[in-house]
């Protein structure tokens, strides 16, 4: 496993929300946020930070980028010096911001200022050279729009500009909040390749998303966040295994679907099945060796057979014990609700 470069230990940050009373019109109480998170970022690894709306993904990224202060806990930088591991606690957010590049979600760059001037302004805050700016503009494909006013940029171009700005100062850690929003598929693919290239150079990357499927093939590790709590974190395969979501397959076919007895005989279990007119769909779990061959031999008309990638809802249901209906449209309330399985409760 790659070495750890940054570690969050018991990190908490909760937002203050307005809760006026007749006698105290400006009263504020602690609202949602992040509760006691322990997280490690590995050198050159891409971590997918996944969770539903209001899970605390943006808050966690803001904590990591030094925008929001830690109310509890610490952030430690870990480096190798002379063959020894050196741990340094960040005493100010300024030090943290020097090694981090942050790309917030959907920044709407606007005004008559040019792309170059917008970058020069931020570069001045980071102490980056103008030579580096031009290189980054070229890297994100905005070379032809270098003198264009920000008002004339499309959302995709604005995303590219935000990425270029996040890369100023050659950060060791790159935090990307929903980076694929607003990018067309071609740009999205190029973006994913760029992230791979950066991770190959040793940059640790965190990508937040509310969709697991969009991150498959890009991320090395996954962290599941829900109601401000980190439910699970690890390599994708190990997370799937721990949540008992591995070894699942999606089957579709026509005419008669295979019976549950047949599936059980082949050493598998039906998780879900659905028949619509002549077409049936089925999700099965178990060791897949030879199953497809045996199904066809038994005369089952199988049209497709593919491994099932678990989605966010399945992961949440599996890790919290909540039902789909409870996870579906539920948004974090002003208080943390204790989760069922992970037992990370509010103090």
């Amino acid at each position, binding site marked *: 496993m790659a070495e750890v470069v940054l570690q969050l230990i018991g990190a908490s940050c909760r937002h203050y929300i307005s809760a006026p009373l007749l006698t105290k019109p400006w009263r504020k109480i602690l609202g949602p946020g992040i509760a006691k998170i322990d997280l490690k970022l590995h050198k050159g690894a891409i971590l997918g930070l996944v969770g539903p709306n209001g899970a605390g993904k943006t808050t966690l990224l803001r904590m990591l980028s*030094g*925008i929001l202060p830690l109310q509890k806990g610490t952030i430690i930088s870990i480096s190798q010096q002379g063959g020894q591991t050196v741990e340094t606690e960040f005493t100010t957010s300024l030090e943290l911001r020097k090694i981090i590049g942050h790309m917030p979600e959907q920044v709407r*760059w*606007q*005004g*008559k200022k040019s792309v170059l*001037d917008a970058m020069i*302004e*931020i570069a001045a*805050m980071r102490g980056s050279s103008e030579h580096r700016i031009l290189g980054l503009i070229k890297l994100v494909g905005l070379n032809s729009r270098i003198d264009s006013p920000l008002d004339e940029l499309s959302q995709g171009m604005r995303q590219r500009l935000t990425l270029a700005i996040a890369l100023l100062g050659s950060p060791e850690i790159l935090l990307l909040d929903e980076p694929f929003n607003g990018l067309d598929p071609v740009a999205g693919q190029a973006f994913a390749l760029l992230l791979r290239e950066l991770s190959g150079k040793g940059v640790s990357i965190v990508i937040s998303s509310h969709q697991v499927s969009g991150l498959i093939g890009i991320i090395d590790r996954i962290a599941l966040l829900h109601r401000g709590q980190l439910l699970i974190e690890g390599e994708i395969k190990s997370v799937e295994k721990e949540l008992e979501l591995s070894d699942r397959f999606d089957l579709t076919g026509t005419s008669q679907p295979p019976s549950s007895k047949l599936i059980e005989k082949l050493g598998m279990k039906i998780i879900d099945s659905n028949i619509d007119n002549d077409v049936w769909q089925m999700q099965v779990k178990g060791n897949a060796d030879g199953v497809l061959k045996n199904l066809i031999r038994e005369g089952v008309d199988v049209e497709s057979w593919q491994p099932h990638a678990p989605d966010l809802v399945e992961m949440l249901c599996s890790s919290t014990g909540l039902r789909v209906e409870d996870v579906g449209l539920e948004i974090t309330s002003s208080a943390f609700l204790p989760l069922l399985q992970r037992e990370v409760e509010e103090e």
Partner: protein
Amino acid sequence: MSGKGSFNKITSLIVKEKMFSTRMLLMFPILLLFIPGLAWGFSDPNIILPGGHRPETPMEVLFYSSLGVVFGGTMCAVLMSFDGVSKERASGVLEVKLAQPMTRLHQTLALVRGTAIAVIIPVTILVIISIFIIRYRMGVWPELMDVVVHIVATGLILTWYTLFTLIASSKAREQGTAIAFGVGIWFFFTFLWALVTSMVAFASGIAIGQESDPSWIALEGALDLFSPNGVYHHILESRLPDVQRGVSGWQIGIMAIAWTILPLWVLARRMEDLVP
């Protein structure tokens, strides 16, 4: 780039952006009309002001022309700064900036300096044009010290209004509220302060508006210290002979410092705690 170099670079970019904005383009003719326009009018050798008064010295003309700064210049400062924080906060640009390794205090100071300078430069140019107009119309140059005091005081009042409006902008989550705050503050000190003065005078049993009554003059002078426009006029009056409003130079100096430091401190505190 050094810390100071970065600070100056950011300031200059803000100045460039604001000074050549559409808003300034719209405000400039109004400023032209208000500042050199009033200087042209008040330096007319045949002008007779209400009460039979006649401006006789260039500093007197500059003093009367300062109305243009009070009405036009401060409004320009409000219009330049009302979305100084709120716009970037709403668009997400503020989050990008706050994630950079530059302290929030330095970012705030660069914003204040950049926005204020973007207003001060055109207003000062117009004040200098006014001085040439006065020379042309009256045949006399104002004293160098009069010019310095006038320009410094003008810079101060524009900075104060920039600060008030930036504080409002840091509080407001959207543009409508931000502009309502900014224009509200401008309206209060520019138009409603007279009402406040009258109410205090009434409550103190002093006859309102009696220019020959020493107690009214003293009260008005004292209350003016609590208004940025009042302090501005106090500073300008310090260069006029025969004006005694019961306020000493050190009081004016302290209030000028207070009107600068306090809003700056409030804004810095506000920006330190700001969640993008």
